[in-house]
């Protein structure tokens, strides 16, 4: 790449302004959809104001938006000074961002469908400070984005460069990921603003709203049909959301980086600097465990909460995670056996769950009174206690840990299971806690503070917890000889 070229001030692509306007309009529309269409608010406003005034207000709003976009375009510029990205932006206040190449944690390039005809992409860079400090260039030419990536992440290949992926999601993996991941919740959330308009449309269009006219008479058939319809709809939505996001997912090993490409209409390319990788999390949801499918999340400092911005490897089936992990950290091997935590953990969970069940029953008794008969209360209590016993056992069974090759593995869960893997020198701080019961039994809970949050290892031997803490501290520093500062006195 020509170094001089990026050394001069660059502007956004003019098409980026159009893209920004479209995206802002869509975002505002999505956010205010219930306000505009819900409960007839839009029609009421139209009746009160009138068509002409509404159109005039719309035109004025559009003119103002165009003016603001023009000012934003004029004030937004960027360039590379040595190995530092400098960005000037701001509508009413001037802001300058500087990011050195050595502080780059992740680079992402997104290309929504409406940007494709113009060859424009959205370029994002996440510094070591975390996702909150993410810098976004909302619309630049593909060639500029590639040049920027090459300057700040020299090993990142251009999209035209065809490299064989070491992992590519299969159709089966994509479908299973759709069925088992949390995409269903995302899809439901995305469609939630449409519920009210749909309800209004049904109210106007349906011949009768009496429930009995719509439903079959047989209760069992009704229950089965309802469950089937709901299940099918949720699964369909989940699969659509997954295909939308992860279609064509491929992961390329590029020496010190992993580069993923994905997306059905909105193509996205993300690079992960392995040196900055802190924790890898292997996630299996409850349904995912049944279907034999899971996904990996690569955590860095200050990681994004939004799943779309995280570095996720979806639709992993047939135990492929065992082959993928060494690509992130060479030498790491999946543990052959897991160490269980103390049985006292199960007893404590039973005690907590039992107390909660008793409280629920007492609260239910106070509210419902004589609404239930004695045997119904007994049945309810029995079911609650069975759930508590099963839950406590599952939690205890899922909790486990392993330590090998300088890596610590911690897993936990109830129906699903999450496994955290990290090198000991990636730990941020460590905390050994002992309750009164744990002190009596010589146990402790080890809290490990990692880049993505806290991971607890409950009810292990106190000596083991201290040993692990010692190893973490030793891994973080060359030596830890005790030294009390003489001049520091309380």
């Amino acid at each position, binding site marked *: 790449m020509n170094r001089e070229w990026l050394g001069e001030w660059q502007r956004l692509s003019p098409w980026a302004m159009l893209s920004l306007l479209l995206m802002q309009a869509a975002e505002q529309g999505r956010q205010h959809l219930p306000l505009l269409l819900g409960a007839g608010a839009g029609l009421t406003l139209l009746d009160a104001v009138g068509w002409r005034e509404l159109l005039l207000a719309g035109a004025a709003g559009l003119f103002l938006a165009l003016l603001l976009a023009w000012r934003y375009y004029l004030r937004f510029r960027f360039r590379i000074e040595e190995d530092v990205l400098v960005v000037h932006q701001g509508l009413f206040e001037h802001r300058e961002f500087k990011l050195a190449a050595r502080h780059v944690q992740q680079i992402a390039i997104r290309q929504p469908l409406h940007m494709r005809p113009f060859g424009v992409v959205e370029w994002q860079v996440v510094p070591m400070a975390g996702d909150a400090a993410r810098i976004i260039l909302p619309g630049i030419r593909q060639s500029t984005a590639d040049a920027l990536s090459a300057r700040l992440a020299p090993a990142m290949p251009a999209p035209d460069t065809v490299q064989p992926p070491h992992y590519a999601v299969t159709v089966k993996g994509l479908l299973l990921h759709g069925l088992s991941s949390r995409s269903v919740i995302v899809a439901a959330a995305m469609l939630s603003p449409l519920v009210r308009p749909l309800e209004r449309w049904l109210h106007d269009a349906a011949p009768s709203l009496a429930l009995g006219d719509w439903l079959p008479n047989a209760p069992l058939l009704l229950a089965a049909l309802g469950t089937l319809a709901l299940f099918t709809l949720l699964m369909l939505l989940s699969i659509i959301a997954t295909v939308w996001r992860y279609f064509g997912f491929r992961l390329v090993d590029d020496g010190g980086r992993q580069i993923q490409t994905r997306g059905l209409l909105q193509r996205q390319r993300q690079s992960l600097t392995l040196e900055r990788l802190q924790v890898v999390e292997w996630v299996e949801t409850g349904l995912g465990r049944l279907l034999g499918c899971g996904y990996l999340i690569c955590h860095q400092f200050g990681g994004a909460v939004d799943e779309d911005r995280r570095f996720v490897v979806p639709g992993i089936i047939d135990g492929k995670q065992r082959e993928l992990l060494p690509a992130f950290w060479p030498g790491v091997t999946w543990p052959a056996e897991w160490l269980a935590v103390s049985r006292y953990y199960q007893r404590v969970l039973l005690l907590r769950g039992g107390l909660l069940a008793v409280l629920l029953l007492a609260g239910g008794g106070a509210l419902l009174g004589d609404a239930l008969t004695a045997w119904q209360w007994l049945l309810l209590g029995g079911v609650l206690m069975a759930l508590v016993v099963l839950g406590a056992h599952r939690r205890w069974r899922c909790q486990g840990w392993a330590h090998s090759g300088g890596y610590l593995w911690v897993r936990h869960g109830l129906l699903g299971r999450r496994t955290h893997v990290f090198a000991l020198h990636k730990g941020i*701080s460590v905390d050994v806690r002992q309750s*009164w019961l744990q002190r009596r039994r010589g146990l402790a809970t080890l809290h490990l503070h990692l880049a993505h949050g806290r991971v607890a290892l409950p009810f292990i031997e106190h000596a083991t917890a201290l040993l692990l803490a010692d190893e973490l501290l030793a891994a973080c520093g060359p030596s830890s000889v005790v030294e009390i500062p003489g001049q520091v006195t309380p």
Partner: protein
Amino acid sequence: MSQDASPTVEQSRLAETPLQPFSPRLAPCLALHKAVSWLLVVLALTWMPLGESELLAWRVWLVAGAAGLGALGVALAWCEARRRAYALREHALVQRRGLLVQRLQALPLARLQHIETRSNPLERCFGLVRLACFTAGGRSADVVLEGLSPASADALKQQLLARLHANAEETSA
């Protein structure tokens, strides 16, 4: 258990770290803070308008119960403060706190990003300072040392900054 025995681990047992206590003024400071909090609860219960409800007859007992819990809380806070201790090791900051749930916290100095000293009005009355240590990616302080005298807080801060500087030089080298 497949532990990787490291030679340095033998030299640096966390449990054997000699700890030094915080300022003796920390116990009355925390006890007073706790007492004021509970006093507000007791006063709220005392003057809470109950009208003609059945709770009116129980008000005395409610207030007495809250006062008893408050006294217990103050006593526990006093004992807990007396038990708190800390140590600065070559590559880690260690703090012990807690009474019913005891906690031994260790922060490797290599993870330290910046340090803040803070003090609220009550702490200033007792001549105490808090030292908050932040790490990368953390939104709040990872380790907070409460109950340091300003002189010891300043000395500790200088030592931590010197370590930070040394770490930065090692990293850049």
